């Protein structure tokens, strides 16, 4: 029974995918969207059932669908594992997924390929569920690759625009680099431990560490982390995520903010027993996370595309999560993943609502004053902005504060850098709000006349997410740490409670004051001084460097893309002709020989017979002599 329900949970979005692929074009757009949404809702409801059951008996549920690979000692099942961690992920993947599907019915209604959009979206949810519920690393890897594929398909959804196609390819290729790391990490574990089942790995890793295999474990952990940097957009593989905003906005909300990019955090949390034994790698993770948080926040300060700002903010928030992971505070990272999913999905959907209202305009310099025209969008986004900025008592305050608190206890430098990043976050998020919703409208007259609030299918998900962004922090308030207790079976006895002493209150105060400073700075610049960002070519000096994203893309182009292009050009123009010359010369030798040999076969039967007899005589003579 449970097994069937779990399979239904997994396959329901896949059924939606099949329906939309084969019949999507024949039915009406609304119907195709409804089917797509319902299949995800089914998964969500089943996740809730499993969650309730797990809460009652606290037992993880694992079973195998079929035997998959068997080589020597190495046996692998296609197994499904529903434990605290995977069900938590299932809940918000399918929950937010349902809301975003609902939103897309209205948002994508004018698109001729709406059924295709829902097919991809359903396929994405299916792969995301596979990633989350897999009971070993390889099943997780299937989902990992699958979500990468869907991400590629959806970024390039409007394939008639070549820039979008390039963005899709960039995302796909950069993810490949990370995936290679993940795969190598899996191989190292499989070679050393003969198993990659999560439940067996735990004991195996500990045993190997005792028998002096720490070196191998470190490499494995590092490789797994490289995989995570690709999927979760960390330095050095983060540049694909801002470009991924080429996709439709619901995609950005679902895949590139709330769910897929958290896969790296999921994986590291899943493998927490491995990372705990490799403190060096943990250190690397913490440092990379912090630097990513800072760099991405700095770039976000000066972006003018509303979605780009949110994209860099996502990268920055993911960096904070990795900081927590690196410090061994997995539960804190998971907490921030969940609250971030709520408010970032809300922000993206809100920006989608704005873009929808302005008929595709994404440049904040041409917005402004939308508060009156789009009140629901404004208020929901405002709540989420307060949440991401870390204002009491919204969800983001609690989770971000936990991260900063952990950093403060472990490493003061990281704490300072992370705090600066969060002040920047408050600044650029309010810059976004002020430029978009306050003062007067800066677009064309025609756009101004058409300003309107989005339909209810768009605003309902916004409201739900805004509510969640407000109260989401309640799952892990200091003092009533439900999430920490819930995750205890996964992170056996690792979390430490922060007792609320004066230090903790002071830290909360500092974080809050920092956020308010950021907001006030943004207010004075964009409301008081009525500053509007300049056009692209008027930006000079250091801000130009930031505006151009520290020229990281250019750096990658110069150091990686250009040399590879040059190399392939060399191969094409020099090596390939040389090789084919060698091969062709064999051919011409054979041709030359045969042009002589061919003369023997002249069709004269008399000659043939003569040669035949001579030959037999020769053979007989030879045999005779040989004896």
């Amino acid at each position, binding site marked *: 029974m449970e097994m069937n329900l779990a399979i239904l949970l997994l396959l329901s979005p896949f059924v939606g995918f099949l329906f939309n692929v084969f019949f999507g074009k024949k039915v009406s757009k609304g119907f195709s969207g409804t089917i797509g949404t319902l299949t995800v809702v089914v998964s969500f409801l089943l996740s809730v059932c499993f969650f309730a059951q797990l809460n009652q008996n606290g037992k993880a549920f694992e079973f195998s669908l079929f035997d998959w690979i068997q080589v020597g000692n190495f046996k692998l099942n296609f197994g499904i594992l529903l434990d605290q961690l995977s069900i938590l992920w299932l809940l918000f993947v399918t929950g937010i997924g349902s809301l975003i599907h609902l939103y897309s019915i209205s948002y994508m209604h004018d698109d001729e390929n709406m059924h295709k959009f829902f097919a991809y979206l359903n396929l994405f949810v299916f792969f995301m569920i596979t990633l989350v519920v897999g009971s070993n690393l390889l099943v997780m890897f299937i989902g990992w690759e699958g979500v990468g594929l869907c991400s590629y398909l959806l970024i390039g959804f409007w394939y008639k625009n070549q820039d979008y196609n390039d963005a899709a390819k960039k995302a796909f290729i950069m993810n490949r680099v990370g995936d290679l790391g993940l795969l190598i990490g899996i191989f190292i574990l499989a070679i050393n431990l003969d198993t990659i089942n999560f439940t067996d790995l735990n004991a195996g890793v500990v045993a190997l560490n005792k028998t002096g295999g720490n070196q191998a474990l470190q490499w494995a952990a590092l490789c797994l982390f490289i995989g995570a940097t690709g999927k979760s957009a960390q330095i050095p593989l983060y540049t694909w995520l801002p470009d991924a905003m080429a996709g439709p906005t619901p995609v950005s909300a679902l895949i590139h903010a709330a769910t897929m990019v958290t896969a790296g955090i999921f994986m590291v949390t899943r493998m927490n027993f491995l990372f705990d034994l490799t403190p060096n790698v943990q250190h690397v993770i913490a440092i990379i996370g912090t630097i990513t948080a800072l760099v991405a926040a700095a770039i976000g300060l000066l972006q003018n595309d509303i979605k780009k700002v949110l994209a860099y903010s996502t990268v920055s928030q993911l960096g904070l999560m990795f900081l927590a992971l690196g410090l061994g505070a997995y539960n804190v990272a998971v907490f921030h993943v969940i609250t971030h999913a709520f408010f970032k999905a809300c922000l993206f959907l809100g920006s989608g609502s704005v873009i929808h209202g302005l008929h595709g305009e994404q440049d904040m310099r041409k917005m402004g004053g939308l508060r009156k025209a789009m009140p629901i969008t404004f208020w929901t986004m405002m709540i989420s902005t307060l949440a991401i900025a870390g204002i009491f008592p919204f969800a983001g305050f609690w989770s971000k504060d936990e991260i900063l608190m952990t950093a403060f206890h472990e490493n003061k430098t990281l704490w300072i850098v992370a705090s600066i990043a969060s002040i920047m976050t408050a600044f650029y998020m309010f810059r976004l709000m002020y430029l978009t919703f306050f003062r007067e409208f800066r677009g064309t007259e025609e756009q101004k006349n058409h300003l309107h609030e989005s339909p209810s299918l768009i605003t309902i998900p916004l409201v739900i997410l805004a509510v969640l962004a407000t109260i989401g922090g309640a799952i892990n308030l200091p003092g009533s740490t439900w999430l920490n207790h819930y995750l205890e079976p996964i992170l056996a006895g690792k979390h430490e409670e922060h007792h609320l002493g004066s230090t903790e209150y002071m830290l909360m105060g500092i974080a809050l004051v920092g956020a308010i400073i950021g907001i006030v700075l943004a207010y004075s610049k964009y409301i008081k001084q009525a500053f509007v960002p300049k056009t692209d070519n008027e930006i000079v000096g250091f801000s130009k460097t930031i505006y151009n994203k520290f020229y990281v893309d250019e750096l990658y182009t110069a150091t990686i893309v250009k040399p590879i292009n040059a190399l392939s050009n060399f191969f094409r123009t020099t090596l390939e002709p040389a090789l084919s010359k060698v091969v062709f010369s064999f051919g011409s030798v054979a041709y030359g020989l045969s042009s002589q040999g061919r003369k023997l*076969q*002249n*069709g*004269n*039967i*008399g000659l043939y*017979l*003569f040669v035949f*007899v001579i030959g037999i005589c020769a053979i007989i003579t030879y045999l005779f002599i040989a004896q």
Partner: protein
Amino acid sequence: MGNILNEIGIENYIFLSVLLFCIGVFGVLYRRNAIIVFMSIEIMLNAVNLLFVAFSTYHQDAEGQVFVFFSMAVAAAEVAVGLAILVSVFRNLGSIDIDNLKNLKG
């Protein structure tokens, strides 16, 4: 029945056989008429058959004679096919000179 080899020695059969075989070979090499070439081949075949039978008697072993029956049966089949080809060649070319068959070369 006394052994016939007592009256005519085995070497005489071998000489006859070699003679017949050589006649066959030269017939194949020198004649241009396909039917004659064909007949020469038959002579060669029968020279071998003769040798078979002679040695069979010499060794007092019936196996050689049995073999000859097989080879005659195969030869008969081969002749049937070969003559059919020759008829077909004659119908197409109006002659059975083997030099004309050059045209079959690709």
